[in-house]
């Protein structure tokens, strides 16, 4: 039976081979979305630059406190904590959360993710991102390893020049930054010796933060629902235990049904805690922070944080 399925599907999709140009295009997309994720290198104890410190204070005030401090491996019970029964079913709460997320077309989502660094016991890696729910390109990301800011990146479309993306990477340790402008409709380069691509490749607008979160919630299959308290505030709790290697607990605001925290306990790593703070669109100024006064602009070649 499987042979028949395999033969038929192989024949049907025989033309689905991936040529070099498409592989290169996909890789560029992957790289664009992964290259600025948290580094796992030891960070020297340099002070956080003034501008970033101010930003961090704003976020800390707006975020809820972690449940477990993001420490070592923990059983599901410690993620769930005691919960009281809820009147609605897990499916209904999830449905309402999806509706609420679909309505986020103007807000700003602040995402604060904390997880232990593998190989460095007790050290937490923290990344905070600010993302627009009206413009998939506009975002800012701050990475803090072990309490020390190690990188900030930000990007936005140039005012008056749609289709051009301005981005800044700022390294607080060297107090240097690199600024660049890219054309979103440029022709991709291919391997030496390979023919050029047949047409220019215009990059698709990435999904907004709310859309990404909605997709994540849509792929969850919560089976447990209840009430709990975070910092004295009542929240709805959804637990997804359908995957044996990964337990997820989603905390939802009972008034707005917007997610405010996601806690995951993957195998082999401590708790990963992600807090969500929803800001009105009028807070769009937080999406961009100019490098601190005194920071030095350098070329990409001289920028100390390499890919």
């Amino acid at each position, binding site marked *: 039976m499987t042979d028949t*399925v395999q033969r038929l599907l192989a024949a049907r999709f025989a033309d689905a081979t991936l040529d070099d140009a498409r592989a290169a295009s996909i890789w560029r997309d992957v790289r664009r*979305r992964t290259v600025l994720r948290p580094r*796992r290198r030891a960070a020297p104890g340099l002070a956080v630059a003034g501008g970033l410190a101010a930003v961090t204070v704003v976020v800390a005030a707006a975020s809820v406190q972690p449940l477990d401090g993001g420490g070592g491996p923990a059983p599901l019970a410690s993620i769930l904590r005691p919960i009281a029964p809820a009147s609605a079913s897990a499916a209904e709460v999830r449905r309402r959360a999806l509706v609420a997320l679909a309505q986020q077309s103007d807000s700003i989502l602040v995402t604060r993710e904390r*997880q232990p660094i593998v190989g460095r016991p007790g050290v937490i890696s923290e990344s905070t991102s600010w993302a627009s729910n009206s413009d998939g390109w506009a975002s800012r990301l701050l990475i803090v390893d072990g309490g020390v800011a190690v990188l900030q990146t930000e990007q936005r479309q140039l005012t008056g020049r749609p289709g051009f993306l301005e*981005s800044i990477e700022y390294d607080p340790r060297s107090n240097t930054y690199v600024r*660049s402008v890219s054309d979103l409709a440029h022709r991709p380069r291919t391997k030496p010796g390979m023919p050029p691509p047949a047409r220019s490749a215009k990059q*698709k607008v990435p999904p907004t933060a709310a859309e990404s979160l909605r997709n994540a919630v849509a792929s969850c299959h919560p089976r447990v629902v209840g009430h709990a308290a975070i910092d004295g505030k009542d929240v709805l709790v959804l637990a997804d235990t359908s995957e044996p290697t990964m337990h997820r607990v989603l905390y939802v605001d009972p008034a707005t049904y917007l997610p405010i925290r*996601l806690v995951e306990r993957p195998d082999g790593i401590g708790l990963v805690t992600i807090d969500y703070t929803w800001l009105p669109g009028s807070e769009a100024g937080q999406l961009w922070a100019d490098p601190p006064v005194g920071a030095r602009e350098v070329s990409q070649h001289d920028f100390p944080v390499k890919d």
Partner: protein
Amino acid sequence: VTAATTTTSSTVLGPLDAPPQLHDGRLLAAAGSDQAAFRAVYERHVAAIHRYIAGRIGRDAADDLTAEVFVTAYQRRNRYSRERTDARPWLYGIATNLMRRQRRAEARRLRALAAAAAQSRPDHVPGPDAASQADGLEPALHAALASLGVRDREVLLLAALGDLRPGELHLALGVSPGAARVRLNRARSRLRSRLDKETT
């Protein structure tokens, strides 16, 4: 879930720097500080992952979802055991999870394929050879796959398209080896019964 970020140093698949003797576990362990290590994993598996996704949801959506698979893999690289030599089952598992969001689109596509296959050979009379019989089965097979539950379809297509060895299927499904075997056997018998229904 974090915001998308970008870079403007737009090198596309230049020379591969990662030593070829490193297996996937080591490469993923190094990927946080060495982009070339992650690129090596990407180059090693992208064709297989893309083919699996294209086989399930079509070429049009395969590029985007393939990128999503590798972005997710990068974000979860610390959860991958550095002792595991082959990341392919793990990547298939990520792809399978991501495609759950597309299960309705996949079912619609399979029904469309069944209709197209039936239309293209309305008077097909299967010959005695296996290939010819398989050709005659195509419309029914697509229809039967579309009618299966997503978990049955997942395990069948992972086995068929993923080209995984018997001991690897459970790694992609995130279950025990025994549970994977049970799921595959159940899915096969359900497919068989749906096929019987479609062809009679």
